[in-house]
């Protein structure tokens, strides 16, 4: 069981900055995120794109902002449970919470701060009838263990980096690899596109374009897929395969958090914006893009503000009655949990003779 003071769900900019504000109050944080790396949307969707409205940064690339935040919170030694999705929450008799991920990791904290942005990133599923019946029975939306496909036949659909990269990788593992894409053009990294072309010329990857998979068949286990070429149903044909891997990228879904008994409005969690961004469940806060209140703006800078007020409220809950005043970092410095201390250099006082 992982124990912490504030359990943060979501490693986007708001969740990361909450670690800093909590650290100033000597509160420890642990972060859960469904993605394998911190940064949320900024890392997953647009790491190379510039952001222009972070105060004090006329321009900063999203990935750089994440790197900066990670550096800023490093001395507060946050824990991370990455690549796992927060699934269940259980309120304990003492008012604290146990949050369990989809992989069974348990976290115990008196305070839960949901900084989940638009939700957790899950694979986009193509609208193929019956596909639900074959999930994990031949249809996989991601490649977790490539060995699973050793000497098997695999059909991959998609035209982005993950479709290209896994086609290349599995060409050496699977007995045969077929890549199906709706266009003749692929939008992945240039070297990946070139490599797929090479493997195609070598006969190690079969390429079917422009085409899409329109149906899946089998008796319990996947046995074949229907390929539609040129958007023409008359050209449909059946392709036998052991596995079908649709790789159409990720999209965010609020997911299990929607069932935690929180008040939801417009796909977001309602919070008290007059005070501390607490939800209808005392001890659970929602900060950043995941929350809503009158006048809400989904901006990173608003998330930073919300994280700061949330931490003050969390402190009062964890240490009821304890004296606490706001301290400026310029005055008090930043004392990390790792023993480091950053502070303003003392001014030199010397008389001039």
């Amino acid at each position, binding site marked *: 069981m992982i124990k912490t003071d504030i359990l943060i769900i979501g490693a986007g900019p708001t969740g990361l900055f909450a670690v800093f504000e909590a650290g100033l109050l000597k509160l420890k944080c642990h972060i859960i995120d469904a993605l394998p790396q911190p940064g949320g949307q900024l890392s997953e969707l647009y790491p190379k794109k510039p952001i222009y409205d972070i105060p004090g940064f006329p321009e900063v690339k999203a990935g750089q902002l994440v790197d900066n935040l990670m550096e800023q919170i490093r001395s507060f030694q946050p824990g991370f449970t990455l690549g796992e999705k927060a699934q269940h929450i259980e309120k304990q008799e003492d008012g604290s919470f146990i949050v369990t991920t989809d992989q069974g990791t348990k976290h115990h904290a008196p305070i839960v701060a949901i900084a989940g942005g*638009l939700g957790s990133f899950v694979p986009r*599923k*193509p*609208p193929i009838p019956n596909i639900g019946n074959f999930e994990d029975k031949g249809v996989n939306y991601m490649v977790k263990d490539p060995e699973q496909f050793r000497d098997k036949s695999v059909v991959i659909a998609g035209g*982005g980096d993950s479709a290209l990269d896994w086609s290349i990788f599995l060409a050496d593992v699977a007995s045969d690899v077929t890549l199906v894409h*709706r266009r003749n053009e692929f939008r992945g990294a240039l070297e990946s596109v070139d490599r797929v072309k090479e493997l195609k010329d070598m006969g190690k990857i079969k390429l079917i374009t422009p085409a899409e998979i329109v149906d899946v068949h089998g008796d319990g286990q996947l046995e074949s897929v229907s390929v539609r070429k040129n958007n023409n149903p008359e050209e449909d044909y059946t392709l036998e395969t052991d596995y079908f891997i649709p790789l*159409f990228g990720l999209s*965010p879904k609020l997911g299990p958090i929607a069932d935690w008994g929180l008040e939801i409005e417009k796909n977001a969690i309602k919070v008290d914006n007059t005070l501390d961004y607490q939800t209808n469940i005392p001890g659970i806060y929602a900060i950043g893009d995941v929350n809503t209140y009158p006048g809400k703006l989904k901006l990173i800078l608003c998330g930073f503000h919300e994280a700061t007020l949330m931490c003050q409220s969390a402190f009062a809950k964890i240490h009821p009655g304890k004296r606490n005043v706001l301290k400026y970092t310029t005055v008090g410095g930043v004392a990390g949990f790792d023993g480091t201390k950053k502070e303003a250099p003392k001014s030199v006082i010397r008389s001039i003779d």
Partner: protein
Amino acid sequence: MDVKITIIDREGTAHEVDAPTDMAMNLMEVIRSYELAPEGTIGICGGMAMCASCQCYVQSDTELQEKEDEEEAMLAEAFYVQDNSRLSCQIPITEDLEGLVVELAPSEE
């Protein structure tokens, strides 16, 4: 100056709305400002042509700006795509859009 645009929502209801040409808005933002699709089901990526949640079908013969590469690429991976599909976040509101009719594509799942 405003232009009149007709937006058919995902339930099939047509809404004629006024869209401002002087606010640097795109069509996705107009649809959101009139709340013609539930928050969280449209414009998820914020308008970067990185999701297809704002996909629409253009039903009038209004002349639109050509698609740029990013929009083409996203539509190549979107679902429910038709020949007249566009990402509404890539359509800036200009005076040329007077009389435009679009229908929202179904949301994924």
